[in-house]
């Protein structure tokens, strides 16, 4: 249960806001609120480095003024004074509401919610977390002599509560627990450059985290990059790991974002639905309810229920992600991907990449058995800098290996560059086995002819 000093009482919040709104002459309003109780630890060579805890709360209030225009304000102050300040601030801001696009309550804000099997897990508390992480670090350091530090590490657990309510009577609320572990090791051998690798695990509670799996993966990844060589600049067949492919797809998610389409900053257009955007053997869904999605929520910022949505089916674009306002503009239903704002943001929940069972790629590539040459890309970095989402292009540093004649050699600093449209329409093969990662679900994805730049 949420501790008494940091929890939200939905009906109390609704009554307080209703009273304040009536006093200010505001007839239409809605509110999103969240509070959380988190703790986390970091260690450094056996010693506790930093122990952290936080109790956070915030609310966002939207009001519609007498001209029907919308204003919004956020605050961390849940006292009566804080609520009043937020309400008055939102009312003031509503003078600047955009008359061309006025958000409304979601028509699904009172629709039944999906069942989510995410039982709340008990929290262990900070000192047991510290012991677990200290042991994990010691275990990891003992696995290989070249690994001398784990400079980035952390173990955390949290309990959070969020709610949505509006003046038409909608009331959504949920609680969830979540835990995460990350271990990024650094290794160095005499006369060689330092190398690093890491792993992440998420769970509903800290006691169910796969600590050993995280350690082993961090060790394997780090050690596999020790024997590195430069790669010659050129065009290569590339295999993306599930994590890397999901990172790339996520960086270009504006392709599926109705808000971005309406704003003119997406690669897609209003009439792109029904067009072929990838190879015919690719399916892509956004599935916020997927059992592997630890952070699953039953409703979005506007109270719309979360659901599984087909984005690409057999290579054809099927749907966009919608808020209430964008759905109205497209004459469809909201899809449960909205934030809460004067200009409502839209974003994906959890990508699931898979094969279309009706169409074969014609290839049978397998990253474990292919003799090469190909580049296996494990992780992409600097997506915030190297992706031009509005243009489709990317040029990104990566960690990976050059596989040639069955030999796998880590690639010294290099970048991969291309265009997401060419990547999607040039996929050579999707491997049969999908992996659940902390970013979504995907198999290994093969793409021919991508530009790699190395230091050679």
């Amino acid at each position: 249960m949420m501790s008494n000093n940091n929890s939200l009482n939905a009906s109390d919040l609704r009554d307080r806001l209703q009273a304040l709104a009536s006093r200010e002459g505001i007839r239409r309003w809605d509110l999103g609120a969240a509070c959380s109780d988190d703790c986390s630890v970091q260690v450094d060579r056996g010693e506790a480095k930093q122990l952290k805890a936080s109790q956070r709360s915030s609310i966002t209030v939207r009001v519609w003024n007498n001209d029907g225009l919308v204003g919004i304000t956020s605050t961390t102050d849940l006292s009566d004074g804080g609520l009043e300040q937020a309400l008055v601030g939102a009312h003031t801001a509503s003078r600047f509401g955009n008359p061309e696009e006025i958000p409304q309550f979601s028509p699904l804000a009172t629709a039944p919610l999906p069942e989510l099997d995410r039982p709340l897990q008990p929290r262990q508390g900070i000192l047991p977390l510290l012991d677990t992480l200290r042991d994990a670090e010691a275990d990891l350091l003992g696995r290989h002599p070249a690994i001398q530090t784990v400079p980035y590490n952390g173990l955390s657990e949290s309990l959070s509560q969020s709610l949505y309510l509006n003046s038409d009577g909608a009331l959504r609320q949920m609680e969830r627990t979540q835990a995460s572990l990350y271990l990024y090791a650094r290794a160095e051998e005499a006369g060689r450059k330092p190398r690093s690798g890491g792993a992440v695990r998420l769970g509903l509670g800290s006691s169910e985290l796969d600590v050993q799996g995280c350690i082993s993966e961090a060790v394997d990844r780090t050690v596999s990059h020790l024997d590195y060589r430069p790669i010659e600049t050129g065009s290569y067949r590339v295999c993306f790991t599930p994590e890397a492919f999901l990172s790339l797809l996520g960086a270009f998610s504006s392709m599926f974002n109705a808000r971005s389409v309406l704003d003119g900053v997406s690669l897609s257009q209003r009439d792109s639905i029904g067009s072929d955007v990838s190879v015919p053997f690719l399916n892509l869904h956004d599935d916020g309810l997927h059992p592997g999605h630890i952070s699953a929520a039953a409703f979005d910022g506007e109270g719309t229920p979360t659901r599984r949505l087909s984005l690409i089916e057999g290579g054809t674009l099927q749907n966009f992600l919608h808020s209430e306002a964008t759905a109205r503009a497209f004459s469809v239903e909201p899809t449960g991907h909205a934030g809460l704002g004067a200009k409502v943001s839209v974003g994906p929940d959890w990508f699931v990449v898979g094969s279309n069972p009706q169409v074969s790629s014609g290839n049978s590539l397998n990253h474990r058995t292919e003799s090469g040459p190909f580049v296996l890309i494990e992780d992409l970095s600097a997506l915030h800098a190297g992706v031009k989402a509005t243009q489709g292009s990317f040029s990104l540093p990566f960690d990976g290996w050059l596989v040639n004649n069955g030999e796998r050699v880590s690639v010294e600093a290099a970048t991969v560059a291309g265009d997401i449209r060419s990547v999607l329409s040039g996929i050579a093969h999707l491997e049969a086995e999908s992996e659940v990662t902390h970013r979504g679900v995907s198999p290994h994805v093969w793409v021919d002819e991508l530009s790699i730049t190395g230091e050679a």
Partner: protein
Amino acid sequence: MTNAFSNQWRGLLESLLHRGSTAGADLVEVFLEGTDHIGLLAEQDRITSVTPSFARGAGLRVFRDGRDGFVSTNDLSEAGLQRALDQALAMLGLEAQQLTSAAAFEGLKQLTDHGLTKADWLGRCPSLDQASQCLLQGTAHLDRLGQHLQVRRGSYARDWQEVMVAASDGTFARDIRLHQSTGLSVLAADGDHRSSIGRRYGSSDRPDDLRDWDSEASAAEVCTSAGTMLRADYVDAGQMPAVLANRFGGVIFHEACGHLLETTQIERGTTPFADRVGELIAHPAVTAIDEGLSGGSFGSLSMDDEGMEPERTVLIKDGVLQRFISDRAGELRTGHKRTGSGRRQSHAFAAASRMRNTFIDAGSHTPEQLIESVDQGLYCKAMGGGSVGPTGQFNFSVEEGYLIENGKLTKPVKGATLIGDAKEVMPRISMCANDLELAAGFCGSVSGSVFVTVGQPHIKVDSITVGGR
């Protein structure tokens, strides 16, 4: 307790610090914060988003034997702060009720109030009406000066922050910070050709900044760049010399070297420069500085988030490493003296050693001399963002680039990413021009996103890896 932070908080803060000290903490620190933020977005010829937000909170940190426990809360009541402190103490195995042989707490010193002269800053900032008009003027200029513009955007953010820091070593200080940033961006599209260009302008401590903004000149800069890049070819990848323009070109030093000179990196063992103070780590042409007070620059501070007045820190002098950027925990754990660089995004983060206004100092050449010295290479006129990893590998993107052929700028190119290793690239910065300029940016790291300035004159890097197609 009053909403504003003043001497009236002394009693409560002293009681908290006393409680922590008597429990056995080596040092207790309380950071109080109140913020008032406004964000505005103009798209085409209309204001499409106004987002006011307010926040109040506290971050309490307790040190014991080199370790620290940190708790943040939005509850500024006496009970809420005590609860947070007790939680921080408990993390280190200390209990508030248990008297130990703690470091004596002798009370807070006299309040050092940097905010006294800044009391009217919030009121002097532009009203929503004024800010909206400025942005709409900017997008109108874009419309007039640009071609093939599919999207025109203007954005404005005003961040007002009041902070109070109290620590059991007697530190008692208050400040008011004001940051404003304005940006224009466009997406130009013509058939398959596309270019997206944005520029941000930022200042601190200047309530009138937006009123003084030359929106027409900014729009002209963005439109010229977008027009040039619209039909630019992708750069050919490889190793080549590069000349990086001044202002935001300074991101190369920020990513390639600046982060590695933060004591946080020594603590983690992730900097190759940890034991190299007094040694040549860069080309002798390079002098690099990080300072807290560069009149009105985005990263300027009257005091850092640990209550210390910032100093001008010469990091590298003629290629020789001089100092590290240090905060309280950094000094405690690495022995490098604090430099007034303890910074955090908000009360939700513990302070860490972070850059402020960081730049490579001017040299003696002209920018033209740098370009003339390159046979075949890349001229990076505008940079995008970048990052540095745990092994010192850095990267950053080039937003507007040109080929240099036979000592002259020729055709524009796009899609370039520069990557490298700090230890290798610093000795390759062989020429610095005489046109130092600074640019506003945001830096994300261990203590969140903070306002910073990057800067440099034009510089020449003898060889760097350019990723592209």
